[in-house]
């Protein structure tokens, strides 16, 4: 249970048209994600690490997308944001500095 590689990290996103591309990108870029749908919310969990890549989102959205826009989609998260730059957002446990 204490292994940071298997502890679940997760993001909850608003389930709407705009976020579909984000959700699909996360599913494509992260093996072993588990997706749970609740009214208005989609919860995406992954063991250890979860990445959101700008390029993957842009590909599906058909327009430019900056990683700051992720703030519009997110409802809550479990894990540390270990990276948030122009190209990707990474969520993981055990993020000692």
């Amino acid at each position, binding site marked *: 249970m*204490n292994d940071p590689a298997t*502890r679940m990290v997760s993001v*909850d996103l608003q389930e709407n048209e705009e976020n579909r591309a984000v959700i699909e990108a996360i599913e494509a870029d992260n093996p072993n994600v588990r997706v749970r749908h609740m009214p208005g919310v989609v919860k995406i969990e992954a063991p250890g690490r979860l990445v959101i890549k700008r390029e993957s989102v842009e590909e599906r959205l058909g327009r430019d997308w900056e990683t*700051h826009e992720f703030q519009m989609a997110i*409802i809550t998260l479990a894990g540390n944001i270990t990276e*948030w*730059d122009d190209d990707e957002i990474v969520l993981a446990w055990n993020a000692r500095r």
Partner: protein
Amino acid sequence: MTATPTRPARKLSMKARYSALTRDLDWEPSYVSSEEMFPYTSFEGIKIHDWSKWEDPFRLTVDAYYKYQAEKDKRLYAVLDGFAQSQGHLSLSQASYLNAMKIFLGGVTPLEYQAHRNFAFLSRHFNGPGPRFAALCQSQDEIRHAQTEIHTLSNYNKYYSGMHSFLKQHDRVWYMSVPKSYFDDALSAGPFEFLIAIGFSFEYLLTNLLFVPFMSGASFNGDLPTMTFGFSAQSDESRHMTLGLEAIKFLLEQDEDNVPIVQEWVDKWFWRGYRVAAIVAQMLDYMLPKPVMSWKEAFELYFEKQMLEGLFPDLEYYGIKPPRHVQQAIDEKEALSHFVYWVFYNFSFAANFTTSIPSKEHQAWLAENYPDTFVDYFQKPRWDKAQRIVDNGGRFFFMGLPQLCQVCQIPMTFPEPGDLNTICQRTSDYNGEHFNMCSDGCKWIFDREPEKYVQAWLPVHQIYQGNCGGPTVPDVLAWYGMQEGDGGEIAGSRDEVNWAAWHGTPAAKEA
């Protein structure tokens, strides 16, 4: 004036922009000492050696912050307008759904405003530019939340009871003292304790339990505006959670002497926040006509799994243990909401919301979600009995005043650990006076700072002391600012009669 054609300036990377626009705006004071400039960051015993070690994973800058906040507001206000224009309130699952919102408006919205004030204070008084800027953003978020919540619910206030005097009632009504005293406790602490109390313990550990399942419930019950403001606010919460987590890690990394101080704050504020969340528990389990997720399930998903199994193993590295008394919260998950709604059922004649015996279908849902407790401990001894009274033409209300816990201010209703049939009561004596607490958690908190909690403004004591309008129920309700139709039983209430009339159902013809 001939401009040499130049290539457009290269856009700075997020990291460089954050560094230039946030960190670079700091300076060393030269004509006052830094102790004079930041007088509040030493008395709590927290030691900070290097403020620059504070990290903001969001790398927010002022321009990016306002750009996205404006976009969030635009989306929300478009929804509010559409909902109001289309008489959206008529498509709620039931009028009684709004009881949950009446509690939210009076219990939570004023706390958002208080959070705004205190984060504004922190944005001036922390020594480092990183935490100052993060606090500034959160301060702006919190006032946005207060405003959008009031604006969202103001549309319902045109048609429904119980929302007209929420600010006055936040200061006066018995059950509102639970969230109010909780936040006052945090506001009257030092800046670091506030950060652990609200930034970490509330925002990171518990806020999901308030917003996520609840806003899903709003979505499921046709309350589009609340769902939208909830998720809009919650999108800021993920930033607040990150701030809270950053805060605790920063304090722990700066000096080993900070660890025991922070541990005690985590112990205290987990329990304080958890007790306030009891009100959310009953909203989830009883107040949504179409329930979406039980308190127990939400607690397991958002607290046990994400926090105890996810976060705390990370904090173990710093020597931080899960909150003291956390096991009692886990044990109570089977019973918490049932005890609290029973109290509300007993006392809603003196509240701004209405209550009723849960319908047969709702009780079946509760039995299914609480297979070990609901039928034997709550349905048979309480709801069946209340139903018999109703069948004989009555309605049970408890007309006395309950003993309140000196710390959380909830009436004594919670069970002894391991014994659902016995009410837990703990006592402490201080300066020759006797004080009562609802649990080991609240007693531990009282004994740690008795000089603080002996000053509590307890609604029941205040009524007895003659400070709440007079000695009778009508006197007190008048002082609370209650109007006809605000409280009592759902069946036959003003909201229910109006609802039936608007929908042209048979009840309307009888009424």
